[in-house]
């Protein structure tokens, strides 16, 4: 299967957007090569603003641009966007509901070698807690591009969580994405895996392996973590025995929490969460760390088997 990093797809999508809409501007905080906003910078230097290593300034400058009708995409690593820039995002972007796209890369532990200080495993929780914030998490390069375009068309604050590693391209160009609906990408009747980001590929692998053993697994790609598509989750809870959530994020406040919160009020269902269990990451190759923290198809399989 072809592989491509979501951040690379982001860089390409920005260039497409730059050609489509002269109001699109891109901001970065000294990470243009890593976040891939350098691709936009090369094409539209007059619409690319590097504020230096200053993430608070990055977010509030984006807010100012948005008040004047621009559509700013603000990029840095997820750690420094959602972490360092939290209060600027909360008060100066989201409180006035400004049309800013917060588009960080290097989310999760698959950042790898940089270690725990750079591995954002709390950003979904932080962004999800902000009133009105839309939180998107692409599974592959195709979905990333569609999300970036959808975010540009949506009027309001959006957080798009992208990664560093090359990951399998799961979807064709005809894959549909719109903000809101979760996509059931594999039907199944025994159990449901609701996954997001790079765990979607793992969920598909797990479903294929379990099918060989006669276990029918439904796979839902939750691209929009907020607002959560309750209908699709509820239907899965009603039609399958239990739900497994899988994400490259803390189990506190992420997709697993969102699904649990929703089902707790609508249709109490067993929700088994796969994610990081209240600890920080460490240095290592991305693949090693995914193994170490059990963010794998094997883990999904074992959790399903233990609970079926």
């Amino acid at each position, binding site marked *: 299967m072809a592989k491509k990093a979501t951040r690379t797809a982001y860089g390409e999508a920005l260039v497409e957007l730059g050609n489509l809409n002269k109001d699109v*501007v891109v901001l970065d905080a000294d990470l243009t090569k890593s976040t891939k906003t350098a691709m936009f910078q090369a094409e539209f230097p*007059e*619409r690319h*603003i590097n*504020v*230096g290593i*200053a993430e*608070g*300034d990055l*977010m*509030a*400058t*984006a*807010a*100012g*641009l*948005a*008040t*004047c*009708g*621009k559509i*700013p995409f603000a990029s840095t690593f997820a750690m420094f966007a959602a972490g360092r820039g939290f*209060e*600027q995002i909360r*008060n*100066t972007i989201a*409180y*006035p*509901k400004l049309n800013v796209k917060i588009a960080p890369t290097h989310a999760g532990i698959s950042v790898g070698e940089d270690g725990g200080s750079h591995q954002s495993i709390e950003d979904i929780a932080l962004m999800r807690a902000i009133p009105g914030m839309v939180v998107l998490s692409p599974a592959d390069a195709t979905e990333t591009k569609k999300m970036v375009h959808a975010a540009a068309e949506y009027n309001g604050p959006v957080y798009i969580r992208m990664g560093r590693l090359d990951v399998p391209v799961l979807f064709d160009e005809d894959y549909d994405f719109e903000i809101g609906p979760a996509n059931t990408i594999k039907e199944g009747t025994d159990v449901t895996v609701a996954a997001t980001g790079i765990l979607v590929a793992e969920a598909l692998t797990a479903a294929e392996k379990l099918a060989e053993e006669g276990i029918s697994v439904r796979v839902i790609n939750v691209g929009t973590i907020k607002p959560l598509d309750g209908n699709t989750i509820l239907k899965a809870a009603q039609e399958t025995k239990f739900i497994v959530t899988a994400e490259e994020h803390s189990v506190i406040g992420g997709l697993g929490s969102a699904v649990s919160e929703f089902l707790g009020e609508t249709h109490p269902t067993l929700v088994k969460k796969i994610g990081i269990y209240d600890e920080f990451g460490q240095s290592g190759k991305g693949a090693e760390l995914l193994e170490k923290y059990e963010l794998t198809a094997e883990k999904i399989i074992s959790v399903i088997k233990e609970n079926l």
Partner: protein
Amino acid sequence: MSNIKLLKEKASNVRKDIVQMICAAKSGHPGGSLSAADIVTALYFDEMNIDPANPKMEGRDRFVLSKGHAAPVIYAALAERGYFSKDLLGTLRQYGSILQGHPDMKKVPGVEISTGSLGQGLSVANGMALSAKISKEDFRTYVLMGDGELQEGQIWEAAMTAAHYKLDNICAFVDFNNLQIDGNVDKVMGVEPLDKKWEAFGWNVLKIDGHDMEAILDALAKAKECKGKPTVIIAETTKGKGVSFMENVCGFHGVAPTEEETAKAVAELEHVEKIEA
């Protein structure tokens, strides 16, 4: 000089409104609203290209109240200028009012950005000024910061950005009243030497008496003439200016005057107005 006289009268009206609305609200920040009254009056009644009948007018100048707790000064100026009825001033900080404790751009016509959390307004102003440069528009962006607010590190991030991108379409004010909640700014966390700091960050620096209307207008004109770098006007002010018992009193940073105090304040402001007339 009739223009100056008119502006002084407007500033006095703004001050009376500030004191009265905070009294009615029984909470708010009179000290830093009063110290900024002359600057804000100069901007709204002389300097800025704005249209109260069309608050979103294309190409209008922008104002960012970075020290958002001075909300009463912008509310008073906007009401005096006709953006909304002065009757609303009595609803400050009340449930259901458009006049939130700190300015909310979604609620108040004429407020360009919601503020309140300190240290972010200069970055926002940079964004506005960058937007103007990108779209080749010639509007100007004004921003008012507190001196205590300069303790926020993000101000200096933004100061670098403005100079780096040569944002000569920005004019910033520092309302230098040397008081913050916990006491004198130089005692809590010194910010001096301000002129040298801003110069070192690549700004054109002007220093004025922030209550001298002619000096404010003169500085604004000089700021416009300066090309290739942003201008900051360090305006030496008195916290609580115009109300004798509030002047330089730290306690009036965030405490409302009583009805008796308010009556006394309004009388004082009217007395000064008569003498100057």
